[in-house]
Each structure stands twice: as structure tokens, then as C-alpha cells.
């Protein structure tokens, strides 16, 4: 799948390597339950790659457990300290309980719950999901029980967890967003807000907040006034230039940005007589969107000073390292969880190992290494390189 390899670690040997080693094996072995990765064939080490513990190197004696993985996503405002920078993305992990024993939520950096609105929503007509080349398309339509039910039903559970839960908030007007956030403010078990602004703004003729810098800034500012909770705002990739929007949100007082939400797309039904999704339009996610999401993070990180969380198509440690390299301080895993629910926890271990073997005491040494040394002059460059 991937040809490049930047950091070779023992985690690579046992798991990331097996990205290229088929899950299917021709040899017989004991049937074990648990992480599928653990059952894969012993991979072959490619020539030139350094195995952990092989010969001297910067990683010699490195101890992954000593690597600092902590990150603060709201350094300017109260603080949102996570044990590690691997989060699970909104809409792909429900309310944190659905995977039961299959996933140990305590190992995750944070959980973003399903988009939450003021009133309950029944969502869109099915079919709501389908696979697309290298990804998937979804149009859930923000089905959720409403903020009051979320507070009543899930917050008490979350309170007992050491993993912070960020409530993903959606609305159709600034007043909607503010009211939802007010009801979440001060509720034990709610660690922060992730504003999903990829929603039509009814007050502005249905134009999404996320594609209009003024609207994005206004909703952020209004929410900021309504709560002291850490406030993350999630960017949409469906815009010509994301930078003014990111700046407006940062200026309005957001603690961090998350990027990106899904890309707008459609699929056609098998009989080719209509679009496949009940709602016609859906959002594309998964590996197919990674280059686009990475570009957005790269651009945003050069124009804002607040932390940026990278999202889009992460399926391996290499993907995580790519996002860190373009300036993200943390990442969210979404679609890949459906295929491999144990992936996020494994990425935490792999990241620690990668840092240890690179001789870093903190994973933060990986951040921003691929950004231009000097901030790009605020020229029209961003426009030029777009085909």
C-alpha cells in the first residue's frame, strides 16, 4: 500500500508492517481472539530497515513508556489535557459505549461523540452509508436524541471515565448552537465542545457556517461567550480557501481547530435509476480523502497559532506521522475504526515506540517537521498551486 517509510519501529514490525502483509494467511495457526493484528503472519523485514533493538542507533535503549504523549488542546483557556494525541472522530464512535469490550476506551486520547442538536433528530432516509473507492459515503443526517437526553443518559457514564469526552455540537442557527452549549456547560463528564459547523445556517439562507468566514467567526464568538468549556471548531474541506475561515474562528476565541469534516459527494444506485443515498448527498471519508485533509491541515497550521487536530483517512502510524509533520498536534481516527476498532489504541503504542526509537522524549518532536521553515508570505500562492 505505502511505499514510503520514515520511521521504522518494532511496532512497524508487528503491526504497521502488516499493512502490506495480507490479513489472510496461507499458513495455519492457532485461532485467537483479540486484536487481529496479533494473529497476522510474521512479516518479513525489508532490506535496509532497522529492527527495534538491532544494532546501535538513536533509539538504542529507548523506552516507549517514558515518551511523553500528553497534549493540551486548549492551552490558552483552562486547558484540555489529553493522555495522548489519538482521538476517535465524531459519528464513528457513537457515545463511546457501543464497542463494548472490543475497545478499551481508557486508552484513547479523547472521544468525540455523535453530533448533538437541541432537539432530537430522526436523521435521513436510508440507505445512509455505502462504500466508495478507498472510502465511504455517509448521510446520517445528524440523527441524535437531543442535548438533554445526551446529558441525562451519557454524561454520568463519561464522568466515571478518565478519557475526556468532547461533545460534537450541531445546529441550524447561532441561537441553536448557543443553547446546546449552555446546556452542556458545567455538566460533569463533559470535557469540551467540538463545534460541527458544516450545517446549513437557516438564518443565512441555508449556507453552511463552515464555508463563510463571517458566519464561522460569529458562531464561534457566540459559543465562546456562552461557555468556559474547551472549544474546538471543526473545519469543512468543501471550501475554496480554508485559511480566512480558520483565521476568523481562531480570532473569535476557539481553543483549537479540528480538520476536516467529510467531503461532499454522491453515489449512484446499482440500477442507475437514482442516487444511492436516501438523502442523495453524503460525506466522503476514509483513506481517499487523506491528501485533501492533509493539505487543509498544512494550510491552516500556517495561519493560526492555536492547536490543530488532523482528521481524514488515518489507517496507520504513517498517516498519524504525516499529520503531525504538517503541524497537527493530535489526530482523530474515524472511518478506519469500522474496519479495525482496535486501531486507535494500537496507534498510541506505535506512536510512543516511534518517538522512542527516534530518540525523542516527546512525540511533539514529530510536529511541524514538514512545514515551510518561514511562514509562507500571505501571497496568492495558495491559489496558484491549486489546479
Amino acid at each position: 500500500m505505502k511505499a514510503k517509510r520514515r520511521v521504522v519501529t518494532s511496532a512497524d514490525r508487528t503491526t504497521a508492517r502488516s499493512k502490506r502483509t495480507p490479513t489472510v494467511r496461507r499458513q495455519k495457526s492457532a485461532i485467537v481472539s483479540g486484536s487481529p493484528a496479533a494473529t497476522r503472519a510474521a512479516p518479513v523485514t525489508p532490506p535496509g530497515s532497522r529492527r527495534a533493538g538491532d544494532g546501535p542507533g538513536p533509539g538504542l535503549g529507548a523506552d516507549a513508556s517514558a515518551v511523553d504523549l500528553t497534549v493540551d488542546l486548549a492551552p490558552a483557556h483552562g486547558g484540555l489535557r489529553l493522555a495522548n494525541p489519538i482521538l476517535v472522530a465524531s459519528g464513528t464512535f457513537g457515545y463511546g459505549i457501543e464497542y463494548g469490550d472490543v475497545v478499551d476506551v481508557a486508552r484513547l486520547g479523547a472521544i468525540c461523540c455523535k453530533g448533538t442538536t437541541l432537539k432530537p433528530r430522526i436523521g435521513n432516509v436510508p440507505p445512509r452509508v455505502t462504500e466508495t473507492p478507498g472510502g465511504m459515503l455517509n448521510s446520517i443526517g445528524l440523527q441524535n436524541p437531543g442535548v438533554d437526553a445526551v446529558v441525562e443518559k451519557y454524561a454520568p457514564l463519561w464522568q466515571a471515565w478518565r478519557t475526556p469526552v468532547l461533545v460534537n455540537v450541531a445546529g441550524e442557527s447561532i441561537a441553536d448552537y448557543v443553547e446546546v452549549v449552555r446546556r452542556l456547560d458545567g455538566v460533569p463528564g463533559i470535557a469540551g465542545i467540538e463545534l460541527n459547523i458544516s450545517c446549513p445556517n437557516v438564518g443565512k439562507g441555508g449556507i453552511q457556517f463552515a464555508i463563510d468566514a463571517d458566519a464561522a467567526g460569529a458562531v464561534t464568538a457566540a459559543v465562546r461567550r456562552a461557555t468556559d468549556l474547551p472549544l474546538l471548531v471543526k473545519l469543512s474541506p468543501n471550501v475554496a480557501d480554508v485559511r480566512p475561515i480558520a483565521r476568523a474562528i481562531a480570532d473569535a476565541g476557539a481553543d483549537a481547530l479540528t480538520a476536516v469534516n467529510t467531503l461532499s459527494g454522491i453515489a449512484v444506485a446499482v440500477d442507475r435509476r437514482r442516487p444511492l443515498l436516501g438523502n442523495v448527498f453524503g460525506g466522503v471519508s476514509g483513506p481517499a480523502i487523506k491528501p485533501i485533509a492533509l493539505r487543509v491541515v498544512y494550510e491552516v497550521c500556517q495561519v493560526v497559532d492555536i492547536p490543530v487536530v488532523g482528521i481524514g483517512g488515518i489507517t496507520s502510524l504513517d498517516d498519524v506521522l504525516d499529520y503531525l509533520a504538517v503541524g497537527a498536534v493530535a489526530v482523530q481516527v474515524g472511518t478506519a475504526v469500522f474496519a479495525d476498532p482496535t486501531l486507535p489504541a494500537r496507534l498510541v503504542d506505535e506512536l510512543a515506540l516511534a518517538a522512542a526509537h527516534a530518540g525523542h522524549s516527546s512525540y511533539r518532536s514529530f510536529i511541524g517537521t514538514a512545514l515551510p521553515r518561514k511562514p509562507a508570505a500571505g501571497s496568492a500562492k495558495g491559489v496558484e498551486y491549486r489546479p
Partner: protein
Amino acid sequence: MRLVAAELVDSREILPGQWLQSFHAPALASGSRAGQFVHVRAGDWSGLILRRPFSFNTVDAATGIITIHFRTVGRGTDWFTRLRAGDTIDMLGPLGRPFEVDSRSRHLLLVAGGLGIAGVRMLADEAVRDGRQVVLLFGAANARDVYPSSLLPDEVEYVVATDDGSLGHHGFVTELVPAYEAWADQAFACGPGPMLRALATLAAGRRGRLGVARLGRKRGAGKVDPPGSPHARRKAFLQVSMEQNMGCAVGACLGCVVMSTGGTPQRVCREGPVFASEEIAWEAGW
């Protein structure tokens, strides 16, 4: 629910484009019930992103073998046919809620349309094991697609309908149902949407036609069971196994819903795939 590495033991094309695969997966072979399913992952290099859901076709706790029966309809199902004995794939399961058989039901009517056989096949085993009588009504387009009787327990009475009349009754399988509706204590169906909808309509009119007392009258008469509860399904004459495109299959993504008569979307992977027929809003009310 567990993540299990299942090793392919046998893979056979039992009908044109229809495959029966056996996997060694002891953790799934015990404790799984008819109506439940597994969410199966294709290999990384397959290029496939989502898992694929398949019903338990049979399970054998003694040998640790489970089987799935599927038709190749696209890239995922096609990929699975290339597996060879000894290959290991990831299965997440058992998932969803099973069929609920009332302890007093002696006569079970199973109705399968095409690949729907895979959804009710295991229930035939469970019913025979429990000493119940089973009639299986099976419908297919033509004789070529008829499920081989040799793959069914001997105790099952097997009645076939084909759309073109090339084998058995000439017409839809639903046309066979009225002849059994008095005999049957409960009915269980899996198959294409229109078939299930027709069966639901038949089931709704059945009590009126037969004038029978409601099953479950004696126990808890007048008590209303919460929709989706095992009790509600156990008391229903007809239980249906529904299909919907899935993301997670554990209830997290809300990708797989069908509309209920109560007006709330139900997740096929969590509240289903088995529903009482009257729980489903057949004329989708979105």
C-alpha cells in the same frame, strides 16, 4: 461481541454464484443464536474499507465451525470467494438480536426468499434440536437457484416455489403461506424487501382470518412490551430479518436504520436484524 480470527476450512460454490464457507471460530460457534450475524473484514490489500455483514448460516459448538452462505454481488463478496483453506480473516460477532421462539410454539413456519435462506437456516437447526416441527417455504427465480435439500436437516418439511415454475409451485413463495398460517404457531422470514412486506400484510390479517386467541394471552395479559424487547418479538406471529447497508455494525454510526411504526429509527445492527413484523413501518414514514 468479540473480534475473532476465523480460519477458512472449506469454501464451495453450492449454486451458481452462491458460496458456502466454513470457518473455524470456536468463540463464535458457541453462544451465537439464529438471526445473529458477523461483520467480516476483507484483507488490507483488498482495497475494501468497510466490513461486510453475513448471517450465521450454521454453527457447530462441538467442532467450533461456523458457516456463512452468500451470493457474489459486488467487490466484497467476490473478494471472499478467493479465500483458500487456511486463510484467516477477522470477524466481529456475534452481532444483533436473534429470533425469539416462544417456548410453547410447536410449529414453526420459515419463509426464505433467495439468499434469505442464509438468514433462517440456523433457526431450522435450533428448532429441530428443540423438538419443534419446521416447514421451510423457499422461493427463487428458477430451479437453478433452489437451495439443495441435502443441506437441510431431514426433519424439515421443504416446500419450493419458483417464479418461472421450473420447480415446485409456479409463483411467489408468499402464495404458499396461507396454506400454513393456521398450522404455524410462529413464522420467521428473511428475503427481499417486497417479500417481507407482503408477509407482514398477511400476518397482520391472520388473526382476523383465523379468529385465534393472541399468543401469550395467559402470561401477562394486557401488559405492553416495549418495542424491540425480546418479549415483543417472541409474542409476534411473524419475525423478519432485515437488511441495511452498514458501517460499524455495533450501533455506533446510525448508518443502518429502518423506520419503526413508533416513528423512531431502529438500528438493524443493534435493535435488529430481527424485528417483529409489526414493529416495522413498511411504507417508510420519514
